[in-house]
Every structure is written in C-alpha cells, then in structure tokens.
C-alpha cells in the first residue's frame, strides 16, 4: 500500500540508490535495507573488515548556554556534570515512572553538549528539553550535518588516512577534526559491538566522503538489515522495540547507566521508582535466547517455560549470520530467569526450544 504522507530522506538517498539499495521505511525515513550484496554478507563483512552505514536519520542536537551540563544532568541518570571534554556517555531519558522515553549518546564538546537521539523520538525529546531545561539553555537541532558510521576491525586503518588523530582516541571518546576544509566530529563508538567510529559531517561534504571511503576495497556499504543483525548480536537495544516507556533501565539490563550517587540523592527524573525497583528487584528482565532451529522469533513472539506457562515475550530476533543460528532477546519474569535456562519460543503457533545465553551473543571488541 502506498502511503500518502511524505517520507524523509537523508542527504545520501540518491547515493544509496546508485549503489543498488533496496529501501524500507524506518522512523519516517526511507533508509537502505541492503545493497546488492545482501544483509548476510554485509553483516559478516562488518565483523571481518569494515562497513559504512548512513545513520543520518538520527537526531543530532547541541545544547549550549549557562549551566547546560547541570540542567541536562537533572533529566538523565548519568553523571553529566563530571563528563570530561570529548567524552561520550550512553544514557536514557526517563519519565516519572522510570520508563524510557529515549536512549541517547551525550558528548561533552568545547561548545556545549552534543546529543544523538533516535529519529522517531526527536520531536518528543525537544519538547521535553523545552519544558524542563532552563530558558538560558539553548537546544539546537544540527540539521546541516549527516552522520556516518564506520564499523569493523579495519575501521581504524581506513580512517587514519583521513584523520591521524583517531589513533589516540579510545572507545566512547572523540575529537574535532577537519576534512576538505570543513569541521567534523569523530567519536569512537557505534551500534555493532565492533571497534568503529561515528562521524558528524556537513551535508554538503558527505557524499564525496562516502565515495572516497568505499573506493577503499576493505570498506563495504551496509544497510539497516545488517545494522539490526549486528546490534542484536551485540545485545544492544533498539528504542521502540526492546525498550519503551513501559520498560525501565533496570528491567532492560541498562542499570549501569545509572550513577549510584544520583540514585541515592534521588536527583533525576524517575529516580524514586528506580531506587525502589532496585531494592525489591525488577519484575522482569531482558534476556538473550539462542535457538536450535533456524526459525526466527520476532517482536511479539511469546516465551513459555517448560510447563507451558507464558513467562515473557520477544522484542527482537534475527538469524545471526556470524553465529549461524537464530537468536533473540526479550523479557521474562525475573523469577523464571533465575530458575531455568531452557525456554520455549512460539513462532507461527509452534514451540521451539531455546537456551538463555548471556548477552552480548558476540563479544564486544571495543578499543578501551
């Protein structure tokens, strides 16, 4: 069915089309699902060599003004006040009930705090900032910049030809640099579990940069199919699918983003609920399951215990080309998670057995 309303495109839309992309709609953007090589090869190559992804659909923002850090600090459980220059942290925006409104990356830069938020949550995040941040704090959407992600063991080798500085930066750190006369910001991060970089680059330079990158035989284009596979293999959450306003960071296994001090001081939105949840234990928790069959559990599949009692649900699943088996993540009630490790996942009215596996399914290879 054709939808009438316009769908957003990134500045690289035509570039993707030229390179044989098949498009899908994601968060109101037309994004490449895969190129000619297909999702499976794109996923494998990303862990063996290097892949480049266009992630410009994500919202890039800059928060500046008096007390920008201490203002943002009130909204998230992470310690933003003590964030060092050119350091990034993964955090979450919570509602009063401790539910996740968005997950985001916050980076301390010379000129303020930069944020990368989910495409679908952009408008909502801006509304929250306008409502909760002091009027002296300015939140600007960086529409003039694209965002490119280079992931894989060879990403350092590829990028050092453009930016010598990157050899010095470690995971979740970044630096300002220059390319072709314009300023870019590089951070050593990503969404695949591999070593990799994300580069914020002005829109008018992004296509040339992409062309130049893929001229390199070790660099391959990868689409959202591979991106989804790689992040599931890495045990990472997708907002709107694995986490949402009904799920707390404790339940989602993201408790590590919470500053202990801020939790004790109850100094961020949602902290009271989270403190109680930690004390009494969350009712459900995010788990990873590896299946014996190649059938793929997807968002919404139910999880049963061996007594055929429904105990949870799948939020993401895929066939992992790097493990040659089907994997999924989802939530099950905490008591069940402690009791046993074999569960049944229902796919198309049939039960398939799977085993709880510690996530990430594939170990992270961050350069720490």
């Amino acid at each position, binding site marked *: 069915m054709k939808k009438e309303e316009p769908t957003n495109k990134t500045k690289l839309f035509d570039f993707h089309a030229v390179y044989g992309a098949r498009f899908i709609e994601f968060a109101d953007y037309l994004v490449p699902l895969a190129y000619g090589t*297909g*999702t499976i090869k794109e996923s494998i190559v990303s862990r063996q060599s290097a892949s480049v992804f266009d992630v410009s659909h994500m919202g890039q923002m800059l928060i500046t003004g008096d007390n920008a850090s201490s203002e943002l600090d009130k909204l998230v459980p992470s310690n933003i006040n003590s964030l060092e220059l050119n350091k990034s942290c993964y955090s979450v925006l919570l509602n009063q009930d401790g539910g996740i409104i968005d997950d985001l990356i916050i980076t301390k830069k010379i000129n303020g705090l930069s944020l990368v938020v989910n495409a679908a949550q952009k408008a909502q995040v801006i509304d929250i900032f306008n409502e909760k941040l002091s009027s002296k704090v300015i939140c600007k959407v960086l529409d003039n910049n694209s965002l490119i992600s280079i992931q894989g063991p060879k990403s350092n080798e590829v990028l050092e030809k453009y930016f010598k500085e990157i050899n010095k930066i470690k995971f979740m750190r970044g630096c300002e640099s220059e390319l072709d006369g314009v300023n870019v910001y590089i951070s050593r991060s990503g969404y695949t579990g591999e070593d990799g970089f994300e580069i914020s680059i002005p829109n008018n330079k992004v296509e040339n940069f992409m062309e130049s990158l893929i001229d390199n035989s070790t660099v391959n284009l990868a689409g959202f199919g591979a991106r989804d596979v790689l992040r599931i293999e890495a045990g990472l959450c997708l907002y709107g699918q694995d986490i949402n306003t009904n799920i707390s960071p404790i339940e989602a296994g993201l408790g590590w983003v919470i500053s202990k001090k801020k939790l004790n001081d109850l100094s961020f939105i949602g902290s009271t609920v989270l403190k109680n949840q930690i004390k009494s234990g969350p009712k459900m928790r995010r788990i990873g399951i590896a299946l014996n069959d190649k*059938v793929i559990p997807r968002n919404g599949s139910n999880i049963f215990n061996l007594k055929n009692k429904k105990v949870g649900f799948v939020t993401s699943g895929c*066939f992992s080309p790097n493990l040659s088996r089907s994997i999924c993540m989802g939530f099950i009630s905490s008591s069940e998670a402690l009791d046993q490790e074999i569960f049944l996942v229902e*796919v*198309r009215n049939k039960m398939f057995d799977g085993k709880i596996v510690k996530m990430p399914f594939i170990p992270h290879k961050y350069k720490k």
Partner: protein
Amino acid sequence: MKQIKFTKEHEWVKLDNEHVYVGITDFAQKQLGDVVFIQLPDIGLDFKIGEEVAVIESVKAASEIYAPVSGRIIEVNEILNDSPDIINSDAEENGWIWKMAISDFSQLDNLMDKSEYSSFVSEN
C-alpha cells in the same frame, strides 16, 4: 518447452508432465532480501488453492507461501535446508520449493503467463 505460470502472490508454477514445481519469482526474492530459512511442507499432504504451504524467513520478515493450485506435495527441495540462499541466487530454477501432483490441470489456465506477470509487476 515447459509451461510456466505466475500468481499475483509472486509465485511461479512450472508444469512438468503430471506434476508442477512451485517457487517464488525473482521479483519476490528481491523484495524479501536475504533468505535464511524455509519451512518446507510435509510430503504427502494435500493443499487447496490459497492454503499456506511453506514459510520463507528472510532477514526482513517471515512470508507465507500459498498453494497456487490444489494438489498433493510429492517432493520438497531439501537442498534449501542447507542453502536457503538459492532462493536469492536462482529463484526461478534451482530455487523451486515443492513439487505437487495435481489432477485438475485447468487450474493453470487462471494464472498469468510471463508477459502478463511482467506487466502485473510493473503496474504494482
């Protein structure tokens, strides 16, 4: 030359003596993306036209494949168990999914021929 027909659900049906081979079209495989698993039907089962026979799991989604004609499954393409990617590389020949015995050959008359299918695809 073997007669080949197409459905609006992007399946092909190839007549080979008293049997038909069934698969999905090259257009369909491109839409699905990489195929990772095919749930094949049991041999000996009877299906009526429009009933779900197999499921193709691609990286994108699970897609049901319906019986384009009524008949009995007499063979399935076992090679797909180990190499589901044949659907992507050779959808309309080696990527056949099942073989069916049919009694009523007039069922094929209702399906599209190659040129009709081509225009159907370009119109949609």
